[in-house]
């Protein structure tokens, strides 16, 4: 392409004005900008003492939980849709015959490797019964790799811990109960 090609739009630098040529006026204005920021409110969150504010807990993707139904049973029907949808292959479900009449299967064990999870929220979207959900818990820590593999009891306990602060998302988002 030629430099004279009509398809090229050439942008000219603006000629310097008087203030720019004299330099010091702009120097002063630059200095006032920084001086203003020197005293302006800070955006830092001093983490352990101060908690960051989670914008909307409904769409935040933190630690997983397994929801319980009204009778306190695990809602999961062990359909494996979440494990199939998971791009990180971090969900491991062992299904067995359900003892209850309203469903055929239920998870005998349900493990999520939180270290492999990429917190994409695909499991939550795939779940047909809204059993798996991501909470707004954001400080996930542990002392060993084994500790970070959350089993069914742990995931249910996350539900028990967060259910008051964050009710099940399904109703708020217009889904099934």
């Amino acid at each position: 392409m030629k430099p004279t090609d009509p398809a090229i739009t050439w942008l000219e630098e603006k000629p310097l004005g008087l203030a720019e040529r004299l330099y010091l006026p702009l120097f002063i204005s630059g200095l006032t900008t920084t001086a203003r920021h020197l005293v302006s409110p800070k955006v830092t969150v001093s983490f352990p003492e101060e908690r960051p504010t989670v914008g909307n807990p409904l769409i935040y993707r933190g630690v997983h939980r397994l929801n319980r139904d009204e009778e306190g049973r695990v809602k999961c029907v062990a359909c494996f849709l979440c494990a199939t949808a998971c791009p990180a292959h971090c969900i491991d479900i062992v299904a067995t015959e359900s003892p209850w009449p309203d469903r055929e299967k239920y998870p005998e064990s349900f493990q999520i490797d939180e270290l492999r999870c990429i917190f994409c929220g695909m499991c939550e979207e795939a779940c047909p019964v809204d059993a798996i959900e991501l909470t707004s818990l954001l400080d996930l820590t542990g002392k060993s790799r084994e500790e970070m593999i959350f089993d069914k009891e742990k995931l249910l306990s996350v539900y028990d811990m967060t259910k008051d602060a964050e009710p099940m998302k399904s109703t708020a988002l217009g889904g099934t109960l």
Partner: protein
Amino acid sequence: MSDYLPSLPTIVALVKIGLLVGGLMTAAAYLVLVERWMAAWVQDRKGPNRVGIPLTKVRLFGLGQPLADGLKIILKEDFTPRHVDKVLYTAAPLVILAASLAIFAAIPFGSSLPPIPALGLTGEEPLLVAPGLDVGVLWVFALSSIAVYGVLLGGWASNNKYGFLGGLRSSAQLVAYEIPLGLGLLGVVLAAGSLKLDTIMNAQADTGVWYAFAQPLGFLVFLVAAFAEAARLPFDLPEAEQELVGGYHTEYSGIKLLLFLVAEFLHMVTAAFLIVIMFLGGWHLWGLTGSGPVETWTVALIRFGVLSAKILGVILFFMLVRWSWPRFRFDQLMNLAWKVMLPLGLANLVTVAAVEEFRPQLVAALGEGWAKAAALGLPWAVFFIGWITAGMLTPSGTDNTPIRARGPLDIEHELVEA
């Protein structure tokens, strides 16, 4: 017996050296913390505020940070690459630090102390390591040039292209800016009639007119040149991280790097001292410090406090400028030195010389008051004329607009079409 004991002046000088070196090192460590705070605040962050007293939970706004920083860098591996010139590589940080510290022999860090008869000090004791030195300003300049030598040695001995480029840049930059620095200084020396820094301060205190007001152009030139000499932004080309990795200290680590960094901070402190002493009245503040000899401890302390406060103010200005201004390009840097600052410095020198030369005639012709006004007004007139002229003649160094009619591609096309 008494022959073997050091004499009183020696002891006094040693005490002063101890105070000064200890004070400067502590100050340099805490200035690093202040610099990090300023950097954080300007960027709307909080900055280091966690480290307090070691092994406790007391945080003290992060005042323990310098200790942690220093400990960390001292404990790091002091790695010497195989390809360096070992002798010069080791000598460079020592040269630069020794020179930066030795500068302070001639720089007063206060006014003076009243006589202390109990210790045998019958006269006023100047707060200056080498009070008898008549060529204080020359001493400062000679040693600051040696500090440049440390930078060059470091860059060259590293046997590394980034280090070499950093050293190369700093040699060009520091040599170029020594001239405006010297010209800004000459005006002050001419007006005060002395090369002693404490006499220069006394002269400002006696008249009550700081040289920044009497010679605005000289102040401007000196300020800009001092920034460049201290290699602070916007003139930090010798160690521009984005271009040169670390500049002249790319190959340094551990305690040698620490020496370089301390020396750099000391350059800034020296520049602040010189700016305050020569242009901002030193320890003088109207209606607070008075002028003339020191009789009481109160006056001595007030003067010391005023000088320290001014120096801290200038250093804070240095740090604020760092976050306000982008780095100059190298050709712009050179343009500024040779085409703007050098002529402005000369204009200032001529003005000051003329005012000093014709002061008696002015007083005779206009009377005392009007002569003073004229001696103040003329430099300000020169300041504005010189500033506007320089601004209009050399806007920004080089033209960045593309030369599109005669680009290499175009010529090629023309040849093909022909």
